[in-house]
């Protein structure tokens, strides 16, 4: 038990640095993919055919490409095409590009739960498409998609560990450092699991709060 504790306390700086980067990656990518995902969902339900086609193509391509490949594309193929992104921004772009495809589909499912009568009524009042979407449909849609949205975000939090292979030192890079330092691998992995559980706890709490606040009897 003593060695188990020392695994963490002797390498506190490494764990702190790793998880700090994980949190930064998560926050930036979560905000980015929520925004982009919502815009894509709006495109997919819009009355403009070209927007619908763009949205659908994006979702199909990004959702079906392994995340590691998206990372590899940005980091190894990017420079050959003169896309000169640093490693941390590359990781954010990869995570946002990938996760927003899933968020788009979740939001679209939510949009479909809103009765068409709502949108029709809004249009009858003379509201434009952005107004209908932003003020009538999306607020009602978000209410019903809190649980699946959180699942997507939690999956993304865990996906951040892929960045370790692409020169971003986050929680997923800790085991490699620890093995070079000759530390116990088992204890290291248990501490990383505990770290992730601690990070996911606030997300679960947020989900509960939002569900309680926005829940309505139908």
């Amino acid at each position: 038990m003593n060695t188990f504790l020392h695994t963490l306390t002797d390498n506190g700086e490494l764990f702190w640095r790793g998880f700090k980067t994980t949190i930064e990656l998560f926050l930036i990518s979560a905000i980015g993919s929520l925004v982009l995902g919502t815009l894509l969902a709006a495109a997919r339900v819009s009355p403009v055919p070209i927007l619908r086609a763009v949205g659908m193509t994006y979702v199909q391509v990004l959702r079906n490409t392994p995340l590691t490949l998206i990372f590899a594309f940005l980091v190894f193929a990017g420079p050959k095409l003169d896309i000169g992104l640093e490693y941390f921004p590359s990781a954010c772009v990869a995570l946002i590009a990938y996760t927003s495809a899933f968020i788009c589909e979740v939001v679209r499912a939510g949009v479909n739960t809103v009765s068409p009568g709502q949108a029709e009524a809004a249009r009858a009042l003379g509201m434009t498409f952005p107004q209908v979407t932003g003020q009538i449909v999306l607020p009602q849609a978000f209410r019903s998609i809190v649980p699946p949205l959180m699942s997507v975000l939690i999956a993304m939090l865990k996906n951040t560990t892929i960045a370790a292979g692409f020169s971003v030192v986050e929680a997923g890079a800790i085991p490699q450092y620890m093995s070079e330092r000759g530390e116990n691998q088992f204890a290291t992995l248990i501490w990383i699991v505990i770290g992730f559980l601690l990070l996911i706890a606030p997300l679960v709490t947020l989900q509960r709060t939002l569900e309680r606040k926005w829940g309505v009897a139908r």
Partner: protein
Amino acid sequence: MRVQRLAAVAAIATLGFGLAACGKSGTPTATPGNGASSGAAGTGDQCVSSGANLTPAGNVSLTGSPTYDKVKSGGKVVVGVKADQPNLGYKDASGNRCGFDIEIAQLVAAKLGVAKDKIEYKEIPSANRETAIKGGEIDYYVGTYSITDKRKADVAFAGPYFIAGQDLLVRKDDSSITGPDSLKGKKVCSASGSTPLQRVRDKKLTEDANISEFKTYSECVSQLLDKRVDAVTTDDAILKGYAAQNPSKLKVVGKPFSEEKYGIGLAHDDKALRDFVNDALAAAEKDGVWQKIYDGTLGKSGSSATVPPLERY
């Protein structure tokens, strides 16, 4: 309409996968080699031996070595090696092995009277080397194995057969990096969490933000060729292997700032075998076989090396 849309999606998806495939093949091996002199080696994938004469010895006088008794009765030798270091310890796509360490292993086997096709190679991860030697899983180990006092408690070392040191691999046209002191403001890459990387950090050779790290050295080399980093750092033996793979684009700076003595790992108590292997190395260094092996493998990088003095104990 529907069919058209499907076709469009398929076309874009194919494009996407095609691009993704580019990402995967973005390793240094994809870069065209340097033509005639080492056409095959230039592609990095096909093994070429140095051509050193490694015919098995006829009569071997080695007594009192349990390892050799096992080799003699079994008719084969089991050698621990690495397989992912070009021109050092490498296994190509068709399963052939080559490189400096591999040929040193073959040299020892030849002196033990074992033919090349009777050598069984085992890839042993660095962390398991002592266990594999102690447990008799392998007869000896040749693969960037540094001689240290800590390891000497568990295993014995013949050699050193090579003295390596942490060095820098840079693009051939880059003259701004001349050694560890000129790294400030330059981007440096190495394997995640590795000792060379830690040394760069501890000695503050460059700013923390300029350090990048990947799981393998080949990924670092790819970033170097694409000008995303300015130098790759680790033992010069490993770096020379990459430079030899692509001598028209890469060079090793040649100012080592650490010292690693590579030895051949043997069973701890087999002194008879240790003396025998040391004699074998001494002979190879004297009659030019060592030099020939070096020239045909790491020497293709353009940097020279000198024979290290043996440290018998």
